């Protein structure tokens, strides 16, 4: 499992966490949409990134639910189940990170703003793999904000 779920310093910060709408992220989905709006290729890459962020969020939630239900501790073969869930979450995370990197690379090629990516991975000498929690935070916040937007829009209609 990702270490941030058990790190006491991280838990303390999360307890102080405010509204998901106000949490700091390098760029919003709306701002990214503006960057991509006039280019079908960029728009497709952004849609792909959003879809992968959602899949990653689903995998994280599925893992959390299974761990909390206690199924993994009680049932036989629990270690295999835990490994499977961890592998699914990791694959979803990898695919999502790749989609962010591909989008940033293509935005750069088209002369669009990519300062947000430098904020996500501030030290070019460090591997992107070392920024996994940063990518995770960015993707989950994007997914949760989008979900809230959809719920609000459904409730209005």
């Amino acid at each position: 499992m990702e270490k941030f779920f058990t790190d006491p310093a991280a838990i303390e910060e999360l307890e102080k966490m405010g509204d998901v709408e106000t949490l700091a992220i390098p760029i919003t989905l709306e701002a990214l949409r503006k960057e991509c709006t006039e280019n079908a290729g960029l728009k497709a890459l952004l849609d792909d990134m959003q879809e992968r962020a959602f899949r990653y969020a689903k995998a994280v939630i599925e893992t959390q639910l299974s761990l909390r239900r206690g199924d993994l501790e009680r049932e036989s073969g629990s270690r295999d189940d835990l490994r499977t869930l961890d592998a699914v979450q990791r694959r979803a995370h990898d695919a999502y990170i790749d989609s962010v990197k591909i989008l940033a690379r293509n935005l750069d090629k088209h002369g669009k703003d990519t300062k947000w990516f430098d904020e996500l991975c501030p030290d070019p000498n460090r591997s992107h793999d070392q920024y996994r929690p940063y990518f995770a935070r960015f993707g989950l916040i994007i997914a949760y904000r989008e979900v809230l937007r959809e719920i609000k829009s459904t409730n209005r209609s």
Partner: protein
Amino acid sequence: MDQEEKNQLALRYAKLALRSDKTPQEASEMRDLEVKLQMSPQEIINLVARLTIPSSN
């Protein structure tokens, strides 16, 4: 309802919310969960965020 039960229901709510092809039954289950938790969608998603989002440190 204890906090752990609330956490599980909130995660269940988010799992449904993240589905792009929700059935009417699933949408109805989401509304039932809002009532059971006595929380708004915003409050539920904020709880899920606290349970799942990694620290920025």
